[in-house]
């Protein structure tokens, strides 16, 4: 019997002989069967504000029970969590936390949602999937922050249990994905459209890195693509880059660059454009109709919320999102 296997979870499509490990480090071929090495073994477990994910149109001001295991399908040179995303599971300190216990803990800590985050949730798909089913049955919502580098079938199956996804759209050229992330742009765009089709609440994060992906023309192109293919209502977060991992040679993103990106996206038709990793008025949600601030944020914290039943508290315009 053949003992070579191929993983069909992400576009990497790792072909593994017995004993070999997948590129994400979280899966291995043992005797002709593919196993997850991280099921029920998170290396990061925290209670975070949902705004940290970042989700700005999903249950604002609530807590998210957040978990991650070691491993990632990409290898971004700017990774902010490289100590765990680029590590083998056995090289991290882990908890034994089966799916049912994740949900029990989420409820005990009064979290409205479980978030699969920090590294790349795709690598702990089975753990995420089983947890998501239990969470849904117990009235806890499921969200993930992902790079969107996942094949269509697993994403569609997971989407039945997902309430929201924040996808990192790391750049808008194949060259950027190949050189800086070790991946490809096309599957990420496909994943975004699938999530929209499956009616999972969607937000997008773009880390703006000086000299690498801060070209305003590309940001206009990316924003126009989002408006055309996903809709103008999808919130986008332009995050400030800080030197990290293999990109310590670059400076933090200047405020002017972030403001230019924000303006470009708004000019392209996007209605909810935020800035992240920086204190700025761009952290708050304004009504696209009356322009008043509906949700005022400082960092991850909601200072004021003038939303009433999903509508602007000043002019009653419906604001897209998951609010209750």
């Amino acid at each position, binding site marked *: 019997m053949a003992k070579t*296997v191929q993983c069909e*979870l992400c576009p990497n499509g790792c072909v593994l002989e017995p004993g070999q490990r997948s590129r994400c480090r979280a899966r291995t071929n043992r005797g002709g069967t593919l196993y*997850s090495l991280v099921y029920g073994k998170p290396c990061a477990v925290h209670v975070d504000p949902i705004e940290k994910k970042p989700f700005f149109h999903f249950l604002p001001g609530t807590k998210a029970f957040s978990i991650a295991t070691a491993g990632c399908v990409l290898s971004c040179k700017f990774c902010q969590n490289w100590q765990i995303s680029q590590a083998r599971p056995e090289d991290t300190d882990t908890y034994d936390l089966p799916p049912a216990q994740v949900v029990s803990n989420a409820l005990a800590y009064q979290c409205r949602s479980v978030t699969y985050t920090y590294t790349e949730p795709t690598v702990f798909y089975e753990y995420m999937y089983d947890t998501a089913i239990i969470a849904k049955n117990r009235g806890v919502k499921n969200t993930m922050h992902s790079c969107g580098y996942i094949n269509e079938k697993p994403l569609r199956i997971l989407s039945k249990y997902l309430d929201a996804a924040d996808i990192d759209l790391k750049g808008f050229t194949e060259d950027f994905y190949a050189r800086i992330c070790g991946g490809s742009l096309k599957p990420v765009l496909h994943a975004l459209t699938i999530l929209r089709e499956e009616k999972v609440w969607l937000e997008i994060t773009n880390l703006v890195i000086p000299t690498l992906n801060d070209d305003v023309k590309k940001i206009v192109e990316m924003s126009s693509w989002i408006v055309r293919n996903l809709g103008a209502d999808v919130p986008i977060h332009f995050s400030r880059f800080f030197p990290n991992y293999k990109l310590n040679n670059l400076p933090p993103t200047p405020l002017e660059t972030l403001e230019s990106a924000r303006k470009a996206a708004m000019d392209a038709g996007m209605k909810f454009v935020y800035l992240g990793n920086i204190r700025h008025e761009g952290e708050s949600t304004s009504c696209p109709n009356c322009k008043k601030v509906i949700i005022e944020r400082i960092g991850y914290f909601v200072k004021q919320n003038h939303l009433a039943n999903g509508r602007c508290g000043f002019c009653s315009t419906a604001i897209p999102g998951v609010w209750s």
Partner: protein
Amino acid sequence: MKRREFFKLLIAGAFLTLRGKKSDAKEKPKVPLKEAMFWKRLD
């Protein structure tokens, strides 16, 4: 407190601490290795 009594307490404390940790480890739930979803055998 006499020196002898102090050392007795110290040893007893260390013994109980180590014993406690050992029993905690035994109670940790073991999560078995999970077969992955979405893969195929190649001929």
